[in-house]
């Protein structure tokens, strides 16, 4: 399986892009040429130079440094959101899939209600009630997504529970935990990874959109969506400000989407 993944060029390239981005974000302090929040009015809108490789913004802050530090809220927080969503969704999904009757029924009805709101509206609702801020945005994103994963994992648990090889290992008397760890979990994990990767792009866009609207990450913290929001205010005088953060989002989201497609091709070749 690993060899197959390494042989797939799309998977290889996109994984590298994502890993490099994560590394740059992790070592932002060492890599960034300048302090992302150091403003200097004399240097505002300066062009690309040795000191500021991508120039500066309306407050004279280094755009490259802001871009690098922006990886942390944009990508890291999206990853965090996704991990929490999957963890919560898996937990509830497995509980629901294994319990029969009233527990399962109640969980599924709650999922139905959660899914009966359009996701954007639900995020706005939670942020609207709890107040503006990135913590609330992440909380809201997890709240609207977990039900989706819970329902999916529940159906996978039920599906795999009825698959022939699991029935077979049941009949030859292998223990329940053995069946779960050896058969079910690997199967579920590969499907969840594909879907979660495809969803990552959505989460990045959704979180950066809320920051763009001013509901998420607050100034002066560098975040790609928030950077675009600042760029919007100076659009008429300095339109080039919007290029770097927009491209950054486009690249990282494309990388996740392509990786998701590539993983699906490798892990689940029949569904092409």
């Amino acid at each position, binding site marked *: 399986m690993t060899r197959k993944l390494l042989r797939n060029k799309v998977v290889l390239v996109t994984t590298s892009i994502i890993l490099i981005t994560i590394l740059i974000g992790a070592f932002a302090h060492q890599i960034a040429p300048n302090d992302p929040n150091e403003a200097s009015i004399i240097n505002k809108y300066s062009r690309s130079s040795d000191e500021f490789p991508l120039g500066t913004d309306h407050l004279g802050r280094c755009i490259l440094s802001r871009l690098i530090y922006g990886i942390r809220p944009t990508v890291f927080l999206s990853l965090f959101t996704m991990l929490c969503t999957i963890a919560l969704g898996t937990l509830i999904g497995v509980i629901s899939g294994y319990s029969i009757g009233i527990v399962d029924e109640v969980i599924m009805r709650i999922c*139905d*209600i959660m899914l*009966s*709101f*359009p996701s*954007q*509206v639900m995020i*706005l*609702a*939670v*942020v*609207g*009630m*709890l*107040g*503006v801020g990135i913590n609330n945005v992440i909380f809201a994103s997890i709240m609207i997504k977990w039900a989706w994963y819970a329902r999916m994992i529940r159906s996978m648990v039920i599906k795999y529970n009825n698959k022939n090889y699991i029935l077979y290992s049941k009949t030859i008397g292998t223990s329940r935990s053995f069946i779960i760890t050896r058969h079910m979990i690997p199967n579920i994990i590969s499907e969840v990874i594909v879907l979660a990767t495809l969803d990552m*792009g959505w989460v990045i*866009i959704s979180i*950066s*959109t809320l920051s*763009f*609207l*001013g*509901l998420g990450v607050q100034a002066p913290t560098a975040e790609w*969506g928030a950077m*675009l929001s600042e*760029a*919007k205010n100076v*659009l*008429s005088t300095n*339109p080039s400000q*919007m290029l770097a953060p*927009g491209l950054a*989002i*486009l690249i990282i*989201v*494309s990388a996740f*989407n*392509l990786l998701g497609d590539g993983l699906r091709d490798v892990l689940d070749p029949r569904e092409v």
Partner: protein
Amino acid sequence: MTKYIIRRILIAIPMMLAVSFIAFVLINLIPADPAEVALRVNEIIPTDEVIEAMREELGLDKPYFQRYLSWLWDVIRLDFGNSYINNTRTVYGEITRALPATLRLASLSLIIVILVSFPIAIFCAVYKDSFFDRFIRLLIFVGTSIPNYWVALLLIWLFSLKLGILPTSGNEAKGSIILPAVTLSLTYISTYVRLIRNNMIENMTENYVFYARVRGLKERVIIIKHVLKNSLQSCITALGMSVVQLLSGTVVIENIFSWPGIGRLCISSIFNRDYPIIQAYILMMGILFILCNLIVDIVHHKLDPRLHGGDIN
């Protein structure tokens, strides 16, 4: 058929109640006392007495469930209370003032989406793997990976600032609806094209298409009458839901283009902590979502003879 519609409506009612309950509960999740918030936004110093009076005015002193019921009764009569910011204005009035602009924007976008994506999807499916198809597939991929607010900025820059042919924002100037409507439709065009294209390609391998060719039908008839109709049948749910997504997607677009619709009203209410308006917005979208679901299901049921087999005899 009638039986199905009635059953389907009966299912929708508890869903709507659940949605209304969520909308009601959410406002009670506010970390602060709503009465205090209501006073603060009007710059009244919240002394204990005034808070008590406000609580009584807002009905916060009554038991939870009773409050829900009386709120629900008001809501059914379209009385959502007054805005916290402008005590003289009703929430209903604020929303009905903003709604027409949003509906105008969303319906124009929907028309653009349908007019653009259907021909492209059909063309891509018929000439699968042609240069055009591959080019469109690339565009679709970019379309799903690009944040639409960035597209909005790029379009404003190109058409308003560089070429100067369209206004940047507001809704007074002539042609001001074009940019927001186009931006809003772009995301959905890529979704529609991908959905219909893939579905049509899947349908084209079906045996009924082969037999239609055997019967000597024109390729155009086969594609439009048979393949397209069958594909629409299988993606009608997703397509119907996009109407709601289009409406909720206006939030971002309206803010960028300063379009005075409910999306902008919602965001400004969030910033102003104008909870009754947020609540009404959530409730409205939730109900709309359920209604759309209901209509889509009924249409789907009506169009597919396999689902109402028995009633022809």
